[in-house]
């Protein structure tokens, strides 16, 4: 079956829609992740989502929710999202109120979350069918995105894009110079907490699609490529979203044509575009 015909299939349409929503959210968010030197935050929060997924899976099995008629309640995501939010706010608090740098704070939560995830997954009996495998969690399962997954991703995308566009001017100002922005009455501390909460939400939900391991790439590579080519932050924001969208569509098509996992083709396409940007930016 050719690529065009394949796009008539429901799972391919859901994969494309989910991929595009993740690309737009992470492309926009990635600008602030890269400019604030928070690249490690993507990896840290994705691993926090893994811990949350483990906790969620354990709770679902232990409380008998696995037999629930409501699809969303059977998915560990409803626990992974608040878990990641708490981790993000804790990282932001440690950053703001202690002498620890953000990478140290992230490193602590990263390790604890992975340990918790491994612990919870290991105590779930192996014969229980959760509907998602560890491999799916680690490397994503974009072709396995369900209708209810897509609804959750769409809701989070609307919230995240609305927040990032509404606060773009103030966030950018605080990213450029926190002190100047504060002197001009911008509540930079509150904005940072909101940015971290937004990142937790985007990363937890997107991890279902692209996987925990590849999530950091989604947040960093398109924005980093855009930074190489852009002269202004506005250009960087637009370009980051465009590059994330292009690499998602191209990576998904490549994955179908060559029959290899889509997560890897998407990230490799992002890397190829980064290489092109680096060559174009050479002076």
């Amino acid at each position, binding site marked *: 079956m050719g690529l065009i015909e394949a796009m008539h299939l429901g799972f391919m349409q859901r994969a494309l829609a989910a991929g595009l929503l993740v690309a737009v959210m992470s492309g926009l968010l990635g600008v602030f992740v890269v400019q604030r030197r928070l690249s490690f935050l993507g990896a840290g929060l994705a691993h926090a989502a893994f811990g949350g997924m483990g906790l969620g899976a354990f709770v679902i099995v232990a409380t008998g929710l696995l037999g629930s008629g409501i699809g969303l309640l059977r998915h560990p995501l409803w626990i992974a999202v608040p878990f990641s939010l708490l981790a993000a706010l804790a990282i932001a608090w440690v950053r703001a109120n202690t002498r620890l740098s953000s990478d140290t704070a992230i490193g602590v939560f990263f390790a604890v979350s992975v340990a918790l995830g491994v612990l919870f997954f290991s105590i779930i009996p192996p014969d229980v069918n959760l509907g998602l495998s560890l491999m799916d969690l680690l490397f994503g399962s974009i072709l396995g995105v369900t209708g209810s997954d897509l609804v959750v991703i769409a809701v989070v995308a609307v919230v995240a894009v609305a927040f990032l566009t509404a606060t773009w001017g103030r966030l950018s100002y605080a*990213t450029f*110079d926190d002190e100047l922005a504060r002197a001009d009455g911008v509540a930079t501390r509150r904005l940072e907490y909101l940015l971290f909460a937004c990142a937790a939400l985007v990363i937890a939900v997107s991890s279902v699609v692209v996987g925990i391991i590849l999530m950091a790439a989604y947040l960093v590579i398109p924005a980093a490529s855009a930074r190489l080519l852009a002269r202004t932050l506005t250009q960087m924001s637009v370009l980051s979203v465009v590059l994330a969208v292009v690499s998602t569509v191209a990576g998904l098509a490549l994955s179908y044509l060559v029959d290899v996992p889509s997560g890897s083709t998407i990230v490799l396409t992002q890397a190829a575009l980064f290489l092109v940007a680096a060559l174009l930016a050479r002076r």
Partner: protein
Amino acid sequence: MSEGAPGAPPLHLHRVLVRLGEAIILEDVSFEIEPGCFLAVVGPNGAGKSTLVKVALGLITPQRGHAALFGTVAGASPERVGYVPQLKTFDRSFPATALELVVSGLRRSWPTRIGVAEREQARAALARVGAEHLELRQLARLSGGELQRVYLARALVRRPSLVLLDEPATGVDFLAEHDLYDLLEGYQRDTGASVAMVTHDLAAARYHADRVLVLNRRVHGFGPPDEVLCEPCLERAFGHHGHHHALAF
């Protein structure tokens, strides 16, 4: 927008105490300046000069005492204050043009699109500091002196009643520093604004300022330069180690 009390001093500190952990950074600091005054704040490294600026901007709340600008609490009327920070904090990896930085001073937010009226105001501010040719240049590619002019344009674009500068001449050559004082005095003549500037240059303070505040945690002198920049006063603030440096103007 708070207009403050009519005739209230542009900058007034009353018995300000700032502690950072165990260390006392500012202690019992009180002074005020008149409208139209050019204040130079001098003192050795670690004297609390930058902390004083942050208190005036409302970025640091004193543990005791208070700071007021135009009769309202510091930080309440940011639109009336133009701030030029130390340039060493500037992030060169941020993609931005000089025009955007100036417009950020007008908008108090980072611009996405710049309207015609904003562009004109920003160009006028750049022209005032002799930097109109830098409008579309990347900030990362500007020299220290050029960057200083753009930051000054950013501070002046909203026509502030008080300009606060924290060692703006650091890393700038002598000629550019001389220009900076001329520009500030020109702005004061045109608008009647007040200027408060932290500087390590005692000669410039003597030559350009109406009032000098000698600070080393406490106020060691406050008044006209001829009275305050005297040997005993500077010796108290700078100590013997800084004595020769202090008097080398």
